[in-house]
């Protein structure tokens, strides 16, 4: 039995209406102690009713309630949605009343978890619902909606089918060695294995794009002191948030602001510029910046136009250190210098705004969200499982000529199990069925 749980389904704050939801296997004892229909007769399943809500101190609001009977509800259990006026005082009192009547306050995500456990929702769709709620950009919303249509399952199906057929081929070699005529050659198997692995890796590689569409991106400006990072920051944010001054080392703390870059919500970080310094505060600021930029999605490496000597050396060090990161290099200050930007760098001027549009486009492109087809996953769980399956296929390809068919088949079985964990599928007889469909097998 699922004990009744209760939670506010709308955010804390004042609004016209607010919704409180309860779910569980026997809601009647709770509902009887917190609400009553305004006309005679009990609450009927599936029909909205005008109700009053009350506690020991009496009626405190009126609204509408609808009761749905499990298992055909969003959670798979009985579900009641109570709409009251949108005042936190009312919502709070209603939840308290439900708790006093025997319900428990739901943990975050518990309604969706119940839906998955009762088989009402597969894992991929549950994750998609979460994405729809969390999405910070139109692209993220689109991705969540796509997830609800089951598109990921569709993309995974052919990969899984490929693995099932490969496994069938290997199993047939083990269980029916007499039937050599129908067997594929090893080269063809290895090609198919690498195709499956590549397919998994391709889907997994969309993870960054998917994640930034849903959760937004974190982008940091880095570079030598006095390169104009704070000026660029203010330009991108659209208002003077960071202190700008000609004297090098003005920025010490990391400054953070939200802004939009094209369709993407971005958290932009301005960091202390780098130089050899004896000032302990400035050095501490630099260390903090280095730690913070570890987990940003893109770096904007700002080079100062016309810089020379010591600054160039610092810039070279920054470029070398960030070589394996996703980054966009800008050559800032072209308004006051006639220097030649290095190849690949975008010439910008924080003063005139020149090149800023190019910078925005380069940032979007670097995250891969221009190529919509591949951005289908936004959860680390999905990415990790896909990579695990890709590795299983690659290891099987390695094992086939060396350790033998049984080991390779074992690895592929792991791969299929990985995809099934991803989608929640269950078709364990598939391999044998595929064997029987393709092979004329004798005793």
């Amino acid at each position: 039995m699922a004990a009744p749980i209760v939670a506010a389904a709308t955010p804390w704050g004042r609004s016209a209406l607010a919704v409180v939801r309860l779910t569980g296997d026997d809601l009647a004892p709770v509902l009887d102690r917190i609400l009553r229909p305004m006309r005679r007769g009990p609450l009927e399943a599936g029909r909205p009713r005008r109700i009053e809500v009350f506690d020991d101190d009496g009626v405190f609001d009126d609204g509408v309630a609808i009761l749905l009977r499990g298992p055909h509800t969003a959670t798979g259990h009985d579900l009641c949605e109570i709409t009251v006026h949108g005042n936190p005082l009312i919502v709070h009192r209603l939840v308290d009343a439900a708790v006093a009547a025997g319900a428990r306050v739901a943990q975050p995500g518990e309604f969706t978890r119940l839906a998955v456990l009762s088989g009402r929702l597969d894992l991929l769709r549950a994750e998609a619902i979460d994405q729809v709620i969390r999405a910070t950009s139109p692209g993220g919303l689109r991705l969540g909606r796509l997830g609800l249509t089951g598109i990921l399952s569709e993309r995974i199906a052919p990969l899984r089918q490929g693995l099932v057929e490969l496994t069938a081929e290997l199993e047939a070699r083990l269980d029916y060695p007499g039937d050599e005529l129908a067997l594929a050659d090893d080269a063809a198997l290895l090609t198919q294995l690498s195709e499956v692995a590549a397919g998994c890796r391709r889907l997994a590689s969309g993870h960054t794009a998917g994640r930034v569409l849903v959760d937004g991106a974190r982008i940091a400006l880095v570079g030598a002191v006095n390169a104009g990072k704070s000026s660029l920051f203010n330009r991108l944010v659209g208002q003077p948030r960071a202190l700008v001054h000609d004297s090098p080392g003005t920025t010490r703390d990391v400054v953070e602001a939200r802004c939009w870059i094209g369709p993407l919500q971005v958290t932009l970080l301005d960091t202390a510029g780098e130089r050899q310094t004896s000032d302990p505060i400035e050095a501490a600021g630099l260390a903090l910046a280095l730690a913070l930029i570890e987990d940003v999605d893109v770096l904007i490496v700002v080079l100062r136009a016309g810089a020379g000597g010591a600054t160039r050396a610092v810039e070279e060090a920054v470029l070398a250190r960030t070589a394996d990161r996703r980054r966009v290099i800008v050559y800032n200050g072209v308004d006051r210098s006639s220097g030649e930007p290095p190849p690949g760098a975008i010439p910008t001027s924080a003063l005139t705004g020149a090149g800023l549009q190019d910078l925005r486009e380069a940032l979007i492109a670097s995250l891969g969200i221009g190529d919509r087809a591949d951005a289908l996953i936004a959860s680390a769980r999905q990415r990790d499982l896909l990579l695990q399956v890709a590795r299983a296929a690659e290891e099987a390809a390695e094992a086939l000529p060396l350790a033998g068919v049984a080991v390779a088949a074992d690895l592929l079985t792991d791969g299929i199990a990985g995809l099934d964990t991803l989608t929640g599928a269950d078709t364990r007889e598939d391999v044998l069925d595929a064997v029987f469909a393709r092979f004329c097998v004798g005793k």
Partner: protein
Amino acid sequence: MSQRYDVVVVGGGHAGCEAAAAAARLGAQTALVTLRRAHIGRLSCNPAIGGLAKGHLVRELDALGGWMGRIADASTIQFRRLNTRKGLAVQSSRAQVDIELYPSRMAEALAGLERLEILEGEVSELQVLGDRISGVRLGDGRILSSPKVILTTGTFLAAVMHRGDARTSGGRIGDVAAHALARSLVGLGLRTGRLKTGTVPRLARDSVSWDRLEVQGDTFPEGRFSFAPPRPRLPQIACHLTYTNAAVHELIRQSLHRSPMWTGAIVGRGPRYCPSIEDKISRFPDRDRHLLFLEPEGLSSDRIYVNGLSTSLPTEIQDRMIRGIAGLEEARIVQHGYAVEYDFSDPTQLGHDLQHQDLPGLFLAGQVNGTSGYEEAAVQGFVAGVSAASGEVFHVERSRGYLGVLIDDLVTRGVGGEPYRMFTSRAEHRLLLREDNADRRLMPRGRALGLIDDVTWARFEARVEAIERAAALARATTITPTAAVIRRLEALEMGSLRKPITAADLLRRPQASWRTVWQLLDLPGFEPEVLEQVEIDLKYEGYVARAAQRAREAQRLESLQIPDPIDWHGLQGLSTEVRERLVRARPATLGQLSRLPGITPAAVHAIAAWLIQQRSTQR
């Protein structure tokens, strides 16, 4: 008139023999009732024991103290190792046996058991007292009282043989069917279903043009199933190969309407893995020939078994078919192929001891449970015999043996519409379950039962000790990369050497074998079987460790017990179908539950959460 026994075994096939032998050897006063004493231990279909995955079963059974392996060894006229090129871990043994000698040696062995009585007669009814079994009644009115009855009736329950449109009652040529017993089982509420199987034509040996046929190669004369000390071998024979052809296929196609399976006369579903020639030709129209093996039924037998040509076509079509095949133009059929349709009892009604869950004391083993094959039958007979005699469930984990996989599949998943045959692909831990290590996996269990004699046990202990010694030697021996060593390594295609490594490291290389490594380093001698074990252990170390890890994870699911009885209706969100399956299957652990057909991982999670919640609320 009533006689009392501790265990009564009904049927003298491969399940019945192992069940009776195990029960009697464990001290139970045992009766084996068979329709015909002379037919004990017969090989009704092909004259062979073992084969892929089946060889594993025979070796496991031998390690536990069963008899099939040693009796097969004593009757072997050709021995082969299959899958030798697919990696050491998946090799299987298959023996051609003398079809007369095998049953007579089995009958002799049974006759030597002090506590076993063999009775001839037809069991017509199960006797029930209260809610448990109390014995059996024979057709002549005799009653055998016993708290434990093991049914091993094979294909004999309500059996019908088909050939063309001719139908005969009976489970095998020359034997009658058990109709009364079939009715008795249905009367007791056992769920039964219908299956079919078939067999091939047998030819007169002197009518085959042997000189025009290809000899089957790749024999392995020194091979044996049993871990017991080897005994002298019978003279060895050769098998021959031939193929069907387009003209024969056309004849079969033209005659399909006269095959009972195609006309719908047989309702039971046949095995997909052992299809009739009719099946092969209609399912694979592109194939212009199918391989056939001509297997002598024995040293002195004048019959030849045509492996690959199972059919139930009318006799005149079979005659024309045979004469259309290369080398068989003059061949005479001495027994035509036929199909058998029979009742089986749904094995999901049984527990892991193969005891019926609603009728305590009744055990079912072998083909009656919907399996196919002598080997599958024999291991079931053994499990039922040991469990019945000891009163305890003899349970082998899936990660410990193919027989554990077999029993668990049967009682949790059932046979799924066609006779169940063992495959290596059914064993999820198959890298751990090799033929070569069956003794190391299971012989301690056989010894604990008391079914392994002192000589065999001493041999086993010496072998284990030698394997450990040889492995330690391989780990301790270092090879230094001198010019001479490198030259020899490269000549043997075992790669090069840059720094010193151990012999164990070298053995792990795919191209290295114990022979080459031992020779190269001039290491002291061990038995070939011992060094083979060392090589397999080292080569598969990584994979085996991973497989063992998986087995341990699976074991966690197995250890989550499901209370019995349990009210599944308390669990919301399950479909009615799934709920009914749970009620019927009565899984004892979450692991068993997770293997039931139609149970999704999401359902397993939901049930796990619910069970844990149930347990905590009860506390």
